[in-house]
């Protein structure tokens, strides 16, 4: 090897090393920039009862209990897993236990988690904790949340480590992800809009973290502003969170505000009812929100710009499948949903013209037929009616046929669903 050749190799290696170091430094800088130093001191004086009460309400609005409590487990003690394509992320204990919970967290450290997505010990947090939304929450609200959570009874329950695949399990990968997709942001009111509209936007975009489910995600699990409220499959790929920007899906641009309020407050309205993950949201969160806040949210939701609808009317399926679907429908569905899919207002949803039925994604319809369910019990709907879990009775083939029949009858025109589709929609 000649000297020139050697020099060239050394120069090349040096160049690469310098690039790596610069890129690494850039990623680190992007991850921590804008942070003010945290004060690790826990306030000696207890928070005011007003702050705690405010926090109790905001905890509902943010549906903290939804992820930070397992079924039957102690409230806020964590342990519930969020299944994602990258592995399972387990929600931590957020009771004020000093060893396993957030008892030692100062309000400033709590704020850093909410706003910057970093833990007390400086670790980067996984965005299954929806800090891309929570970053819009004000410091004042963050302090109230902290005041309420730390006023609860401490529960000693060790956190379950995440079960993520390599390389997603590493902080380095997370740092790169954050460098690409996360910027801490502050909510700024739009002066051209009313105070109510801005309040609605603050709740929907920030604490309510509606975008965490109702937005499209890219292959790395990031939601983008381009796909904001464009609808997307839940991270575990079971249910589809319909688009809030498309009147053909869950957009409420053409609804009256009272219908939106009723749906969020009681779980049912004349036009729709909630099921699946949204039933949980109503049950643990939105039913407790003040009418004024729901009205504000409805105002903002109605103003979300409509996306261009790209769906086309589907081809009709062959008569044999439709005939089989109709047979299943007549035997099991018609007694409640009506011979012509007309339903009974507030009790059994109509299927004719129902947006949930004709979504491009057939997931929700298959889930509902297979699992059945009740609307959540709420103050406005204390004794809901239910639908049987037909997965106990019908084969995948029968479910496919009846799903196709429902999607292509009474003026509905959506793509057919095959047995394989049904099998996949587990």
């Amino acid at each position: 090897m000649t000297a020139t050749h050697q020099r060239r190799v050394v120069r090349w290696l040096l160049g690469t090393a310098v690039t790596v170091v610069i890129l690494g430094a850039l990623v680190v800088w992007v991850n921590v920039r804008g942070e003010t130093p945290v004060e690790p001191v826990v306030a000696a004086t207890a928070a005011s009862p007003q702050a705690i009460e405010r926090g109790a309400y905001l905890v509902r609005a943010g549906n903290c209990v939804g992820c930070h409590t397992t079924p039957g487990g102690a409230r806020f003690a964590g342990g519930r897993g969020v299944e994602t394509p990258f592995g399972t992320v387990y929600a931590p204990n957020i009771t004020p236990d000093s060893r396993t919970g957030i008892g030692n967290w100062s309000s400033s450290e709590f704020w850093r988690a909410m706003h910057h997505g970093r833990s007390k010990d400086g670790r980067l947090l996984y965005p299954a904790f929806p800090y891309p939304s929570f970053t819009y929450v004000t410091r004042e609200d963050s302090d109230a949340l902290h005041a309420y959570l730390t006023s609860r009874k401490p529960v000693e329950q060790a956190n379950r480590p995440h079960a993520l695949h390599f390389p997603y399990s590493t902080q380095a990968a997370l740092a790169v992800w954050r460098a690409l997709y996360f910027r801490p942001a502050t909510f700024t009111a739009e002066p051209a809009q009313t105070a109510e509209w801005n309040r609605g936007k603050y709740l929907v975009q920030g604490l309510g973290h509606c975008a965490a489910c109702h937005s499209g995600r890219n292959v790395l699990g990031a939601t983008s502003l381009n796909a904001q409220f464009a609808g997307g499959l839940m991270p575990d790929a079971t249910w589809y969170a319909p688009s809030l920007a498309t009147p053909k899906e869950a957009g409420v641009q053409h609804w009256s505000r009272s219908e939106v309020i009723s749906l969020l407050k009681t779980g049912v309205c004349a036009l729709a009812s909630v099921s699946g993950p949204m039933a949980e949201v109503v049950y643990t969160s939105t039913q407790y929100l003040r009418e004024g806040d729901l009205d504000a949210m409805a105002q903002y939701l109605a103003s979300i710009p409509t996306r261009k609808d790209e769906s086309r009317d589907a081809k009709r399926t062959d008569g044999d499948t439709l005939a089989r679907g109709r047979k299943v429908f007549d035997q099991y569905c018609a007694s409640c949903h009506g011979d012509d899919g007309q339903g009974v207002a507030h009790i059994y949803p109509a299927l004719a013209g129902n947006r949930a039925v004709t979504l491009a994604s057939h997931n929700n319809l298959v889930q509902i037929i297979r699992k059945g369910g009740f609307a959540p019990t709420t103050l406005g709907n204390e004794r809901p009616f239910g639908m049987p879990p037909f997965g106990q009775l019908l084969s995948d083939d029968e479910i496919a046929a009846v799903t196709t029949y429902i999607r292509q009858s009474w003026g509905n025109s959506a793509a057919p669903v095959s047995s394989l589709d049904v099998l996949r929609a587990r």
Partner: protein
Amino acid sequence: MGALRYIRMVLWSFFGIRRRSAAIEEQAKVKPLGLAAVAVALVALFCLTLWGLAKLAIGSLGMTPAREAPAGATSGAQAKPTASVENTMAQRMQACVVCHGKEGRATNAGYFPRIAGKPQGYLYNQLKSFQAGQRSNQAMNHLIQHMSDDYLHEIAKYFAELDLPYPPAHPHGLTPAQQRVAETLITKGMPERQIPACISCHGENMAGRLPAMPGLLTLPADYLIGQLGAWRTGQRKASAPDCMAEVANRLFPEEIGAVARWLSSQTLPTGIKPAAASTQPLPIRCGSGEQ
């Protein structure tokens, strides 16, 4: 034969190929107006036949054209209402009958347990257990996950108050030795292994005991075996102290099989109710049975 000639000529013209001399020869024999009339009639007939065939084909494929959707409909609010739905618990609980049978009256075959007539306290405890994941059944866990305690109490009360006939007895198919084991466990227990008699908690005639001990007769054998197995593996849990977990762990698998098949084969007269709450302490501490 004039008409036939006209028809033959038109049909030849449809076909389009003919010897010129024959055509000219025939043309000389007919009136042009009549020929035109026959031609129009035949064309109409031809079109009608085609249309009929197409309709037949569409009909046989089930491709009836879709009706117009009501303008701007998002759901059935604008659609005509069905016959009014009864505002009753029975109607609300239609979600249960697919598995638990009409009015919650499942038979002793299959897997699903009868829930009609079980003590209200027992049914409520089970609903809470399903909600808290102490009992696992995907369908049950899903159905009641977003229900208030008030509604769960009402559901339990509704099914507890149903007074419906039990299915008839059927042969248990046990050997005499197996039958002896089953009957001993049920009426006397095995004190030497700290196994109390079933009847000491579940009622003298095994129809259950208030407030929260279930009746066990006529339940499907597979269900009973499944539950005792779930207690042994820790998949089913009741409030501590979990008496049935202890009993299930003290039983031998073959004893579980015999008892389950014996219980399943029996019947009960209509109108029988769970026994009154015991004034004596139960032979074994039972977290859920005392609530």
